[in-house]
């Protein structure tokens, strides 16, 4: 299992960040040779995944990996520390990068996109910064790579280069940069001014001597400063970023970027505030209910969208707030649910985005109203869509069930019945806006076509895309039956446990 046994464990962190970075340089070097370039991407992604697996191995064995890079300010370093939550996110991101790379090759070629070298290069850079976020050892490191991630994904969002892309890019960069500079940096420096310590540590950096009032303000600043978590009213960048090519939307806006946001929030809640401190803050409940409102409101908006990617974008906004809510419930089991949701939502949502891209490439359809009867042409894609949708809704036998289960138990334990109700209503809303799409695709009553269905008339997307879609949809099912490794990992997080013990 562990291919990297002979390597000094402390080097693994640097490797996980450097491998995609070097990959991006190689991609530029091989820019003129598309086949070689794509091989490099795939090899890099696979190598990265094995490195993350090795790190996981060490984490289960209780080895704490650390890496000190450089002192940026006296006493404040860029440093990396491996902890279980980060490992979970790194696993998800690096695995899905492989799948997305396969998909992207099919998509970018099938769609005849321009500037493919820039695309694959920035993609690898984004993954590199995601790895750095995963393993960041203190708040300063996290902030730095959070910004690097924003900047490296900007060329991906504006890939098309037309007016719509420019507008989308402006909103994307505008919201993400301004929230991070105005709120997040302020909160980071505020925390530093207050405690003199930015290291992620079990139980948090605050103690009873710090003013609860200021901590409460800092919590709000953190929640809104991490614009990538898309809490209303700072969610507009996410639908705007949907002008990007679909593989970007898939990996970055279902996995890497948005999850980097909620991951950072979860990490800050657990390791900077500490769940015990969080309970006592006045603003925790306020932000909790704003999160709950985001869940419901964006589900409602999703229903009104006819463009499939826009609908999925609002669905993502809503699902991200599940994780926000899970973090802010400040209970051990809800946090576990939130952490698990990072993984389960990722596989579910990436499947849906893959399907949307496949439909676009194969049938050139973007709007849901045109997709009736599509099940005959694209049976595999639509079946995968159904699987992904059920997982997002949270019904068995799909992965989404577990995370929703733990979140609900967490809400019940904290006596927050409103949150329980929100989660339930949200599931119903999800059914209302996701399930009709595959149902209409397979059972189109208006169709006059009476011929029996046959394989000949299918018009599926290119093979690489189908492989990717199959892998993630099977992943949704597998994670329902075998969630144990992930749950074990989550139980290693200090103060977080799926059995509610902490």
């Amino acid at each position, binding site marked *: 299992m562990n291919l990297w046994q002979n390597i000094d464990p402390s080097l693994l962190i640097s490797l996980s960040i450097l491998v995609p970075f070097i990959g991006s340089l190689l991609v530029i070097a091989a820019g003129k040779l598309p086949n070689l370039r794509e091989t490099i991407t795939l090899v890099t992604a696979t190598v990265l995944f094995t490195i993350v697996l090795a790190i996981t191995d060490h984490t289960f064995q209780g080895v704490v990996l650390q890496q000190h890079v*450089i*002192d*940026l*300010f*006296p006493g404040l370093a860029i440093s990396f520390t491996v902890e279980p939550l980060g490992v979970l996110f790194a696993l998800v991101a690096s695995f899905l990068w492989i799948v997305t790379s396969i998909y992207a090759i099919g998509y970018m070629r099938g769609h005849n996109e321009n500037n493919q070298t820039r695309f694959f290069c920035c993609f690898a850079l984004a993954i590199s910064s995601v790895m750095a976020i995963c393993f960041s050892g203190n708040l300063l490191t996290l*902030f*730095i790579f959070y*910004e*690097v991630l924003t*900047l490296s994904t900007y060329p991906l969002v*504006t890939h098309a*280069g037309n007016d719509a892309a*420019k507008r989308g890019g*402006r909103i994307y*960069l*505008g919201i993400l*940069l*301004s929230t991070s*500079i*105005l709120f997040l*940096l*302020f909160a980071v*420096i*505020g925390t*530093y*001014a207050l405690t003199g310590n930015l290291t992620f540590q079990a139980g948090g950096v605050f103690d009873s001597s710090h003013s609860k009032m200021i901590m409460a303000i800092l919590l709000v600043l953190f929640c809104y400063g991490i614009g990538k978590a898309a809490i209303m009213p700072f969610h507009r960048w996410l639908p705007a970023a949907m002008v990007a090519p679909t593989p970007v939307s898939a990996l970055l806006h279902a996995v890497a970027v948005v999850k980097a946001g909620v991951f950072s929030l979860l990490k800050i809640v657990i390791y900077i505030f500490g769940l015990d401190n969080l309970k006592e803050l006045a603003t925790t409940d306020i932000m909790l209910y704003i999160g709950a409102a985001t869940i419901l409101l964006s589900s409602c908006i999703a229903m009104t969208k006819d463009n499939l990617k826009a609908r999925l974008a609002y669905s993502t906004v809503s699902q991200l707030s599940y994780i926000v809510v899970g973090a802010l419930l400040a209970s051990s089991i809800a946090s576990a649910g939130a952490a698990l949701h990072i993984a389960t939502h990722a596989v579910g949502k990436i499947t849906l985005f893959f399907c949307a891209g496949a439909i676009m490439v194969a049938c050139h359809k973007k709007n849901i109203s045109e997709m009736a009867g599509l099940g005959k042409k694209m049976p595999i894609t639509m079946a995968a869509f159904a699987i992904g949708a059920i997982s997002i809704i949270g019904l068995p036998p799909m992965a989404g069930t577990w995370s929703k289960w733990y979140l609900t138990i967490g809400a019940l334990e904290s006596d927050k019945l409103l949150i329980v109700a929100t989660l339930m209503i949200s599931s119903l809303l999800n059914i209302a806006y996701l399930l009709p799409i595959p149902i209409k695709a397979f059972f189109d009553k208006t169709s006059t076509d009476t011929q029996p269905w046959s394989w000949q008339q299918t018009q599926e997307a290119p093979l690489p895309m189908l492989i990717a879609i199959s892998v993630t949809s099977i992943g949704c099912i597998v994670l329902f039956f075998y969630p144990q490794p992930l749950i074990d990992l989550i139980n290693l997080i200090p103060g977080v446990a799926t059995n509610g013990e902490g």
Partner: protein
Amino acid sequence: MIEQHLAALPIILPLIAAPIALILGRSMLTWAFATLVSALSCIASWQLLMTTLSDGALSYALGGWPPPWGIELNVDVTNAFVLLAVSAMSTLVLIYSKDSIEKEINASNHSLYYTAHLLCLTGLSGMLITGDAFNLFVFLEISSLATYTLVSLASDRRCLTATFRYLVMGTIGATFILIGVGMLYMKTGTLNMADLSTKMAAFESNRTLNTGLAFIMVGVSLKLALFPLHMWLPAAYTHAPSSVTAFLASTATKVAVYVMIRFIFSVFGASHVFETMSMEIILMVLAIVAIFKCSYMATVQSNVKTLLAYSSVAQIGYMVLGISLVSVPGLMSGLIHIFNHALMKGALFMAVGAVFYRMGSVNIEAFKGLGKKMPLTMAAFTIAGLSIIGVPLTAGFVSKWYLVTAALEQDLWIVAALVLLGSLLAVVYIGRVLEAAYFQEPPESQGAKNIKEVPWLMLMPMWILVLANIYFGINTGLTVEAATSASQWLFQGYNPAGVAL
């Protein structure tokens, strides 16, 4: 021998070289000579910084006349630090000038340009290390007169009105400083700064001295373009030749900021200026207004040089804000920003000069599509622009971090929030240029197809600055150490409540 007179070298070298440059006359020859001299004074400054870091402050009696009668040169960590930045910038700009001025200055004036540049360097170095208040005025005039000449050298005739405006405002500023120094002399009978400081301590809030302080502060504020005395700056920077703008933006105003620090801390004493006269409130308010008003002005300009000029005024606001916090970290953030801002603005103005070299215009229209045509220049502009915004891993982030931390240490949460808010405006004005460069198609009519990168002699200094921006954004050891020991030294003997030394 050289070690003994090291302190005088950064002044003497360019001063002697300036007339020689005029006599040499041939463009190529003067260029090589001026660059060499500037590089030599840069090496001397480096030696000075090293000496002061290890042995503490140096005193040098000019002409062998002992102070307080003779003119004394005082080199400490603070001014050695700024001196190094100034002479290094001067060298880089001179390397850059060779190709740049070919397009912007008539060939007959080239030797004049190098002469004026060397004189300007003399004046700036002198202002930094002199220990004599009247001598400071003399050096200020040397650098100012050289600057007026430099600005007026551009072939665009609008530079003449800009120069005239600059000349009038600059002379008023210098006169105010002279009047202020005169008042101090009238009361104390000395011009040596250290001597002034001891003699003034005997007077308890004397009205003549306070008036002198006011005159000097206003005069210096004019020179450093503190809002609302900045009106001369955008016009002068816009119409001056690009290499002149790059030099002035990264050195002249910085030296003036240093002069302000020097007068406040070494002559009048921080406790008098801040506690008795409450000068910090005036400075803080003006600095914050400068940040917002001028950042806003920058967002609406169509000429990129004007845009960057307004940005400079806003950035000076950050430096003055750092001083106005009256604490070691605050002053330190101001000093760091003096250095870092020189790096970023130098690179930005050089990149803009490169665009002028190829396009013959610096309007935002001219930038359209340059991301593809001049990738290296625009990449330099992008990175230096990110540094102005204060993105992590660039020098700008370090300045911002220290400034916000310093504000929070004084519990000035609103000031901290305003600083961050101000940097959002930088996103807007830098973003506008980048959007034109990377997302808009170049106009087809002109010979746009032939646009290519500028000569490497222009790219090299530009990229040295860009790499320095990244280097000093990651390895902050040198800047932070120098700025910390400088501000601790300046705050010696002054310990207001709540300031930890």
